[in-house]
């Protein structure tokens, strides 16, 4: 599928891409920027698909990459998921969307709020209604919010129940070495919102400890000046779901590591023994724990006994997956057993690194806490809720 915004470029330009694709072993290894004699191919890999942008002139590649990601975001927003079949099924809408999003290489509207006013997302009811009435899902009027000073919010929003939910999500990215000491650890945090408020609400969010946040990126709706001066988030929110801020707590500050792994693995003896336990969790339960061990190529199979949860070993991708579930601090989950190696294979020197996933509810590992949320500009009293979740991001333990 292709769409041109300037002069038409022949499809053959993609051949360079396919050639490159043949060279790589894993789809994620596709280089994001490819130069061909006349064009530049900028690629992202998402949802098991490549999205390729072809440019003829010098452009900021990040601009294109961001835009492509935005396109996929919008598709996901419109269709629930993004896959080859979905795109084929809705290609007309997709074309209309792309047309609205970009003109002559300049992005137009990329806020899903506005796009949804221009082009209605598909649903079964509307499809039927459209077939009956002969209407289409393309709006004939210009969206009101598009050119106002707050392009992210449409006017005239009305809800019977006015609600505002905030999720403080923190992902711990860490590398832990063999002995259990932290090589690097950082926190990637987000405040995601689901706002269903009528009219033009003006919100302020204050934190108990805003000093933690030294490296923050904001949604355009946040008033930067107030943050600078008072460390208060003041904003007129978009309607619906969006990410208010994302922040980064760098490796220089001390990050609490909520989980530890006791492990013994020896390929020579063919033995493996892993125990997982909670570390600094402020008394909260660690849930959805899973452990993923990419094994060396020579490992044929693993016969293990987990004390809880299930395990599987995929002999093709050589990945051992152990879904642990919750951790009961009184009885630590353990998995042990034997590994069988291919006969006659060379002794394995390198040890694998383990990926760990977990979730801890009601806790933000950085200690960030919202102290209050106020609304101005509207008269009603909204329902407000804040939720904290800590998750594993790229949490790796070297064995």
């Amino acid at each position, binding site marked *: 599928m292709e769409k041109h915004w300037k002069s038409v470029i022949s499809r053959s330009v993609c051949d360079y891409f396919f050639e490159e694709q043949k060279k790589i072993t894993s789809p994620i290894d596709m280089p994001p920027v490819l130069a061909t004699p006349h064009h530049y191919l900028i690629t992202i890999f998402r949802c098991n698909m490549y999205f390729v942008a072809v440019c003829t002139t*010098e*452009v900021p590649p990040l601009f294109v990459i*961001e835009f492509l990601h935005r396109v996929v975001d919008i598709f996901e927003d419109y269709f629930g998921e993004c896959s080859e079949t979905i795109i084929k099924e809705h290609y007309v809408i997709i074309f209309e969307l792309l*047309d609205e999003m970009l003109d002559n290489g300049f992005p137009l509207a*990329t806020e899903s709020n506005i796009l949804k006013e221009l082009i209605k997302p598909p649903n079964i009811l509307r499809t039927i209604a459209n077939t009956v009435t002969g209407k*289409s899902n393309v709006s004939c009027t210009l969206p009101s919010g598009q*050119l106002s000073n707050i392009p992210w919010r449409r006017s005239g929003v009305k809800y019977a129940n006015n609600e505002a939910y905030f999720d403080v999500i923190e992902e711990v990215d860490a590398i832990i070495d063999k002995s259990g000491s932290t090589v690097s650890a950082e926190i990637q945090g987000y405040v995601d919102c689901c706002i269903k408020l009528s009219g033009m609400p003006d919100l302020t969010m204050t934190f108990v400890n805003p000093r933690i946040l030294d490296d923050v990126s904001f949604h*355009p709706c946040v008033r930067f000046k107030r943050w600078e001066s008072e460390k208060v988030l003041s904003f007129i929110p978009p309607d619906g779901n969006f*990410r208010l801020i994302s922040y980064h707590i760098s490796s220089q500050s001390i990050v609490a590591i909520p989980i530890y792994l006791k492990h013994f693995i020896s390929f020579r003896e063919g033995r493996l023994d892993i125990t997982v336990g909670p570390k600094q969790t402020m008394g909260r339960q660690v849930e959805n724990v899973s452990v993923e061990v990419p094994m060396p190529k020579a490992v044929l199979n693993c016969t293990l006994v987990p004390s809880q949860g299930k395990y599987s070993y995929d002999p093709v991708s050589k990945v051992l997956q152990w879904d642990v579930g919750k951790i009961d601090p009184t009885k630590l989950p353990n998995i042990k057993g034997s590994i069988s190696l291919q006969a006659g294979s060379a002794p394995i020197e390198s040890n694998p690194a383990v990926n760990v996933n977990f979730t801890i509810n009601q806790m933000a590992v950085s200690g960030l806490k919202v102290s209050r949320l106020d609304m101005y500009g509207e008269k009603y009293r909204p329902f407000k809720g804040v939720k904290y979740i800590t998750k594993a991001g790229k949490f790796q333990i070297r064995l």
Partner: protein
Amino acid sequence: MTDAKYFTTTKKGEIFELKSELNSDKKEKKREAVKKVIASMTVGKDVSALFPDVVNCMQTDNLELKKLVYLYLMNYAKSQPDMAIMAVNTFVKDCEDPNPLIRALAVRTMGCIRVDKITEYLCEPLRKCLKDEDPYVRKTAAVCVAKLYDINAQLVEDQGFLDQLKDLLSDSNPMVVANAVAALSEINDSSPSGAPLVEMNAATINKLLTALNECTEWGQIFILDSLSNYNPKDEREAQSICERITPRLAHANAAVVLSAVKVLMKYMEIITDQEFVSVLTRKLAPPLVTLLSSEPEVQYVALRNINLIVQKRPDILKHEMKVFFVKYNDPIYVKLEKLDIMIRLASQANIAQVLSELKEYATEVDVDFVRKAVRAIGRCAIKVEQSAERCVATLLDLIQTKVNYVVQEAIVVIKDIFRKYPNKYESIISTLCENLDTLDEPEARASMIWIIGEYAERIDNADELLESFLEGFADENSQVQLQLLTAIVKLFLKRPADTQELVQQVLSLATQDSDNPDLRDRGFIYWRLLSTDPAAAKEVVLAEKPLISEETDLLEPTLLDELICHIASLASVYHKPPSAFVEGRSGLRKALPAKLAGETTTSEAPSSSSSSAPQVIPSQDSLIGDLLSMDINPPAVIQPAQPAPFGGGVDLLGGGLDALLDVGVGNTATAPPPAQAPMGGGLLGDIFGLAPSTTTYVAPKTLWLPAVKGKGLEISGTFIRKNGQISMEMTLTNRAMQAMSGFAIQFNKNSFGVIPAQPLQVPSPLTPNQSCDVSLLLNTSGPVQKMDPLNNLQVAIKNNIDVLYFAALIPLHVYFTEDGQMDKRIFLSTWKEIPTQNEVQYNLSNMTHNSDTVVQKMQQNNVFTIAKRNVEGQDMLYQSIKLTNNVWVLTEIKIPPGGSLFTLSVKSVTVDVAPGVYQAYENILRS
């Protein structure tokens, strides 16, 4: 019911069927048909045959259908230009539609139809739309101007659209401003002249900054990019722009962040307030780190840019080493970039961490990555001397793993470590030798052989080892063959007793059995060397090796500066200037603005004035600024403005008068005015310089040939440079008892190729006790051979008695040519290009000069002052010299106020000339 069905039609006569459907009366059917057409179009089928039928559907009230038809038109209008005319009417009508959405859509689509005939009709509606009451239409129209410019630039200029576009910059709606900026920058980029069509000034910049806060993220990128092309007129302006941009660093959109970084990096060059710069530097680090936690594609681009930033300003990220640690599931392209940056950031403070990480990586699965990690360990050893021992230990550990490619890679880097730190880690050689058999890659084999050859005296069985390599000599890669040949010769020179056979064997293999000319030549050279003069062979083969540099892949500073201007763009990903790979981009290269903004900023256009024209130097401040950033340890605080005497006005006057003087005296066309002498001194200087004709400093005559050695002939003499020619002034005295006659002279080959330009004319006979003065003109077109010392000249004089030999030293200053004035720009780039180890420092003590007399004095001897500045009361002079053999010498003199101890730094591609240059300075200044 989904749209997927449109893709599935595979019937025969599809086109025909679609045609009838398109012409159907039912609206519903028509619409379905158009959808099918579009579906076929997008998968690459040719449906252009349906053009008239589709265009017929254009006049509809249904917006969806209209959009689809427009989509079709954009694709096929070019192939059917005549048919496309049919659509024009509808377009024009749509541009008048009451619905702004339709007006905008029409303008947008018309711009995408690249048919000349249609563009003519486009002008009127476009003009209207640019003034439309609805901002949505205006912003679409702004983009359309850029499209039109791409199709027909002349038309846009003729119709005055550019001015209208400029007006839009002050539009009340920020989106319109952003799009106008985007359109203008695109037009500027593609303009054939390369010169910007719309100049930025403070007022427009202000508007842009206001719009920056209000427009969408994409608009912000365009605005930031055009800000980066603007050169602020003074430091204050740069600071205030920086302050207004810094909030963009906290934007969620990575592209906005990186564009903001670009502007800041560029403006930081202008700002001299160190505190302000360090605050900015601190603010830059977090956003860059944040970029690394986004999608891998973003990470990659960010890393490539960070690579540049780290080279330019290593301080920014020096504490952030940990974020560059590699995760095993990073895509390979991210891993490799991270590794690169880790090495750049490696320092004594963090080397332990880095090494343990690198060791970890060396056990990973991905072969390419592992190799690079091993190499990285070697580079750390070379970069951070204190860590070398630890690095070597790590490498030894890795060799013990016996993983084939790790061992090979390790041996290659160990070779480099040996070269950097000779005679320090030889104890590990035995371990290396254990792995000899596993090496199968040419580079590793060659490295191992080099090591054996280099340390042959410490390896007892070196001969056996090399002999074992020799068995398969013919099958080896040429790299290995060459190395093996050299190694065996080295071995022979160190242990001649028992390796004669071996060396003969390899020489015969190299010279007789090989087809490789390089190998054969090297073989023959060794052979001849060994057979004629083993001592010389020893000197050649076992010569001291030049040191290897610390960082191998640093970008050269000028390129780096240019790339810094292109942060966030493709150029920054490729690390090449855009002119190197973007088509049709004429020369306009961006340059970092010069530090220390005085009154003018660097002009983009290179000055093309010829060297004979009087050169006024208006922008020396820029030169001085850049000089500051060179490796001459700039002082912490830089004075914000030039002291008054050296300001532009006086300089203009001085230069002008000097030029007048030149013309008035009419003596030397080539003597450029002294760069900066305050009026009086300059005037005097020139009068003195010009009065006697242009003889340079004359050294007193020295006795070259005493009578005892010259069989009664005594010669003393000196060399001078007069009117652009070198001549040899000699006094010949006959101290013998008989008359002399039949004089002739000949020179041996020498460093500068000096030969007599005329025969030696001595009045003959030269009677006893008579002496005569002879002047012999020389030129430098003779054969060249490097002498030691460099300025040594061996002379043979013949007369009726005998042939007499003597040596004379030619003072270097006679080689200084009259056209030695370097362009400032070239001076600057040359200064940077010459590596620091080529810089030699001397002290000139007991000097009684001030900077002005130095300028003047040196100028008379063809040493040209390029720039002069004053740092903390010290005068700094930058001078250029060109030698007759086209070697350029750049010098810097530090003159403390009232002091007598000057510091002279000499920089040249050939370091050998430095002592001579120093001597010349010494002589000239003392004369």
